[in-house]
């Protein structure tokens, strides 16, 4: 288990609290300059924060109060750098050999590591003779050679093309099953984080905003700040009102049913979000009973299709031109003959509306 608690105000402000269990991948997400890499460097011992603690298993790696600050050499970390930072004058074999925790039986261990990352046969190549994907695999093998207690991956997929990236995602997913250490993955790609990580920690301006399971963080963010960081597409403001004993969301002229209102009271102004996939299209030819669930009407402003999913941008009537995005399968958009300028009615599922304090 890795526990990190760091604070400092300069040179880069930090207010970080995160934890990662053995065998888990924690994705540290946030925009460029959010402080993700600095946090990783702090864990690696390449940067020392002004205050805080870093504990790994039963070991204290960093404790400012007790003036304890292990060097990177003392920390047993495996780090994969953004550009891999392979030693350019050494072969694949020697790159890994230098990082081995124990030099005894090095040949056998290197062979094992190379097999683990599918690089057998490339031992004598130099880094400049390898593709981006192969370089990343060497960097992972080198990081694992140290038998680390924590594996740190600093945007490891940013230097490879999209096709290779997809292949490497699958490889990392397979590899992680054989690893029993906390893995911290720094990325600014939310899809990557959602695909690979067991939990996500959102960081902005050096402050960790929320840590939780990907679904929870992406679809039920703690507050508006997190919602903005995880690129929530339908975010709006409304007021909670009491209608015959039950709380409803008054959004302009609409009264929307919301399932989860436990923490809120009548009269409160709240931010609300809904996933574009949880907005249902009312079929024009065959209306269904679902129409009774939070129906709203709007005019199609724009449509874009990507990988079989059509995103429809709607301007909702009676809302001072507020917009909603709805994702529908491409065939549904075609069957319903959706066109820009059409007026359609949709249902906002009550169990998909997530409320946040103002």
């Amino acid at each position, binding site marked *: 288990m890795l526990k990190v608690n760091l604070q400092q105000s300069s040179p880069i402000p930090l207010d970080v609290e995160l934890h990662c269990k053995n065998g888990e991948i924690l994705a540290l997400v946030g925009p460029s300059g959010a402080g993700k890499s600095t946090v990783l460097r702090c864990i690696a011992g390449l940067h020392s924060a002004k205050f805080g603690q870093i504990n790994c298993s039963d070991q204290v790696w960093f404790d400012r109060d007790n003036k304890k600050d292990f060097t*990177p*050499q003392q920390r047993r970390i495996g780090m994969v*750098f953004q550009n891999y930072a392979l030693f*350019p004058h050494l072969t694949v074999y020697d790159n890994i050999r230098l990082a081995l925790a124990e030099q005894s039986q090095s040949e056998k261990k290197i062979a094992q590591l190379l097999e683990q990352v599918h690089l057998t046969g490339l031992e004598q190549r130099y880094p400049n003779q390898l593709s981006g994907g192969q370089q990343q695999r060497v960097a992972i093998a080198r*990081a694992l*050679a140290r038998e680390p207690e924590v594996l740190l991956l600093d945007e490891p997929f940013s230097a490879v093309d999209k096709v290779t990236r997809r292949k490497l995602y699958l490889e990392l997913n397979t590899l992680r099953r054989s690893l029993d250490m906390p893995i911290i993955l720094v990325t600014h790609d939310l899809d990557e984080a959602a695909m690979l990580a067991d939990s996500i920690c959102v960081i902005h301006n050096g402050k960790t905003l929320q840590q939780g399971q990907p679904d929870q963080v992406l679809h039920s963010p703690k507050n508006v700040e997190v919602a903005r960081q995880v690129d929530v597409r339908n975010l709006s403001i409304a007021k909670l009102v009491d209608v015959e004993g039950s709380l409803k969301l008054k959004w302009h002229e609409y009264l929307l049913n919301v399932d989860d209102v436990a923490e809120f009271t009548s009269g409160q102004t709240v931010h609300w979000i809904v996933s574009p996939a949880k907005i249902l299209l009312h079929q024009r030819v065959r209306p269904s009973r679902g129409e009774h669930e939070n129906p709203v009407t709007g005019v199609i402003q724009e449509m874009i299709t990507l990988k079989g999913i059509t995103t429809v941008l709607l301007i909702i009537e009676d809302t001072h031109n507020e917009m909603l995005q709805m994702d529908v399968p491409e065939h549904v958009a075609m069957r319903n003959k959706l066109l820009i300028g059409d007026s359609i009615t949709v249902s906002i599922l009550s169990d998909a509306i997530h409320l946040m304090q103002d």
Partner: protein
Amino acid sequence: MDWQAFEVSIKLALLTSVSLLPIGLALAYLLANTKFVGREVLEAAITLPLVLPPTVLGYFLLVGLDSNSFFGGMFVSLTGHTLAFSFTGLWFASIIYSLPFAVQPMLRAMETIEPEIREAAWCSGLSKWKTFFKIELPLAWPGIITAMVLSFSHTLGEFGVVLMIGGNIAGETRTLSIAIYDSVLAFESEQAKSMSLILLLIALVSISVVFLFNRSRSRVVRL
């Protein structure tokens, strides 16, 4: 042909370039990897011999090495010998005079090493010394070879400083370039020509070696 002067020149150039290896490396490492107040002043001081007239540099070195000065006096009390007009004094002056030719290529080579490479070595468990010897030194090797060859060639050809510090003592401080000067003054043009050709040849060969080395290296491992 003054073979004695040739021997003095080669000995001086070899000793100077070998001495500059650790000195240059230490200074280049310090300048490339640490931030401190006065870094620019130190770099300027190291580069100064490049722009100062050799006679000016020679004058200050002569004053500094004089037995009445602090440094020169200390040397006399320790060894019983004076630095000025001696081979040791010349050697010391050559180190100062050729310092930028050693430090600059080493510094440029070290600056091209990405900081992440060094950090990756630390994260791989390598100590700072091991990182220096296994990673930084091999990566900076072309710069180091260039530094050694340049300081060797530069020392071999120095004139003004040698004349100011060493004078013209045969077998002690008379180098090949001084001998050429003497030959020209004495109208011994054949001797001046042969010695000049030797210096020209050595300079050409050593610089060619640097280029060849750097080119062959870049073919094997593109850095």
